């Protein structure tokens, strides 16, 4: 803190002001409050310099969710990078560290995206590696997944994704994020819908009531008649509640009467959603 006081000795800090509302003195986190005083002054003066870059890092350490801090940090980086491009690669290292410490933080993931975009293709592989690490700790991290999709769509690299998805599903076959990603990968690389149904059923052998896997298989059954026939053949006589739910979807057009009967039975089997299934049964019965 003392070093910031010295570095910003020429700056008059501005205190928090929410307008004329009765605002008490900040009683906690005096260091954060002091740094914010300098930061508000910087917002007024528009200074973009190495000392402001350091100030934003100190503030982000206190509060990584402060989006304006990250805005100002990027403006400093962009301004300073025109003289020294290495500042961006340093930032890749620094922000990776922050992302590892704050994996659920929205601002840091967007900061990474902006940084990769600024550097371009050369940063794409690094980004995929960082995301893979984040997903090892939390395989459902929404920001990490959406950044991954963005990197792939922007810079390519889809070929390695099949193996990536397979490993995640081997680790946790209930991981909905991995099923969704697998679908995107298949859409990108192309696939045989019948084979998708077959391999999904294989995974379902060990996890019969896996919602994500059933929805995945149904998606291919809806797009392809042979895939639908394969799934239907499996569901006829299969045990479990979700195979019956799949039957409702598979039979709703070809045999709405039977689909309605199954939906009515599901109202008993799936008590939490009893009203939903009764409504489906009625709808299938009268054609709405």
């Amino acid at each position: 803190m003392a070093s910031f006081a010295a570095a910003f000795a020429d700056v008059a800090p501005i205190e928090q002001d929410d307008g004329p509302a009765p605002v008490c003195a900040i009683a906690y986190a005096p260091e954060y409050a002091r740094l914010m005083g300098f930061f508000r002054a910087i917002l007024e003066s528009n200074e973009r310099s190495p000392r402001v870059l350091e100030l934003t890092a100190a503030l982000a350490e206190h509060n990584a969710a402060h989006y304006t801090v990250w805005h100002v940090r990027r403006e400093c980086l962009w301004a300073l990078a025109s003289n020294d491009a290495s500042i961006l690669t340093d930032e890749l290292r620094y922000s990776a560290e922050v992302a590892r410490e704050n994996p659920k933080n929205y601002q840091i993931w967007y900061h990474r995206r902006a940084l990769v975009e600024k550097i371009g293709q050369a940063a794409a592989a690094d980004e995929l590696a960082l995301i893979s690490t984040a997903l090892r700790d939390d395989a459902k991290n929404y920001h990490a997944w959406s950044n991954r999709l963005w990197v792939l769509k922007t810079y390519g690299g889809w070929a390695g994704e099949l193996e990536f998805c397979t490993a995640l599903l081997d680790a946790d076959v209930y991981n909905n994020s991995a099923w969704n990603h697998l679908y995107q990968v298949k859409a990108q690389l192309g696939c045989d819908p019948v084979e998708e149904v077959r391999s999904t059923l294989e995974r379902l052998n060990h996890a019969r009531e896996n919602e994500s896997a059933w929805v995945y298989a149904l998606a291919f059954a809806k797009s392809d008649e042979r895939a639908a026939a394969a799934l239907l053949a499996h569901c006829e006589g299969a045990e479990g509640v979700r195979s019956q739910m799949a039957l409702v979807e598979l039979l709703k057009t070809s045999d709405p009467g039977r689909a309605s009967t199954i939906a009515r039975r599901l109202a008993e089997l799936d008590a939490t959603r009893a009203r939903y299934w009764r409504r489906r049964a009625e709808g299938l019965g009268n054609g709405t």
Partner: protein
Amino acid sequence: MSAVDEAAAALAYATLNDPTQPPPPFAPERHAAYLKRVAADAGALEYALTEYMRVSGVYWGLTAMRLLGRDAAAELGGPALVELARGCQNADGGFGGARGHDSHVLYTLSALQVLALLGALDRCDRAAAAAYVAALQQPDGSFCGDRWGEVDTRFSYCALAALALLGRLGDADVGRAAAFVDACRNFDGGYGCAPGAESHAGQVFCCVGALAIARRLDLVDRPLLCWWLAERQCDSGGLNGRPEKQADVCYSWWILSVLRMLGADHWIDGARLRSFILKCQDLPDGGIADRPGNCPDVFHTFFGVGGLSLLGALPGDRPGIDAVFALPEDVVESLGLEAQTVPRNDASLLDAWAAERRGGGAAIVK
């Protein structure tokens, strides 16, 4: 000892997660006191750390107060809050999360909602705000959140809702906005933050809400989406945001509001959801947490009260909440805000809308 205190004392922590155990009573007085306390406690660390989203916190608190049937403006300090929201408007026309913060469409919507709640929309520069929001739209119909250019379907909702509040929906290309949202529809019927991104119940609210404002609910795969949403109800009675995730009070709002827009809010087990929300109350001190036994916050207090409101579980004479605009119904009515919604059990209306689109006929008004 009051009835609420007795219930709190009798409530063993271990039974909170047992869905067969009855819930404690609803404690609206405690929650109102909690909201007042939070609003006044500017010295707390939490207050300093959340400065960047101050105006959203004000919106959650004000709306929850109104839904509890209280005179929110009088109890939380209406004139000061109007000044707070006005103070967030920047020279670019947009609003930041607090005075001096960069403009963002998230906080622009929150600030406009605060002003709407306090009957003070004409106290800001409406034309500049509308121009700021409309300029965030991209050629593919999507919206950036701010000048940094991040795109997310959350911003589609914020932008359309903000423009509707300003009475300037026509300033955006609403057709393209709906087309972008439709491009984010997944194979499970849900929606994610971008095309191909995993379905997430919070994003589903933003997408279906945007389509409701754009009058394009015909683009929703209603049976598939409602099935996916109904699957979000857990054994605890609470709702989760994605498969295999824990239930969280915030999804009581995100999901129930979408089901309401689609005329299907009675398709899940309302009694068990109500019970889950009631168990998330902090009974001694007021406020609602994300799940039973956790610490309350303003965000979850708003979503819990909003969920109870949609369930019709708030007793007495108080305004309901509008599922599309997330504002008390009387505010929505007085502003003349309109959106498309499906009446209960009338799926045929959706088919009619879809057929009309195909036939190129005039749009049906609700």
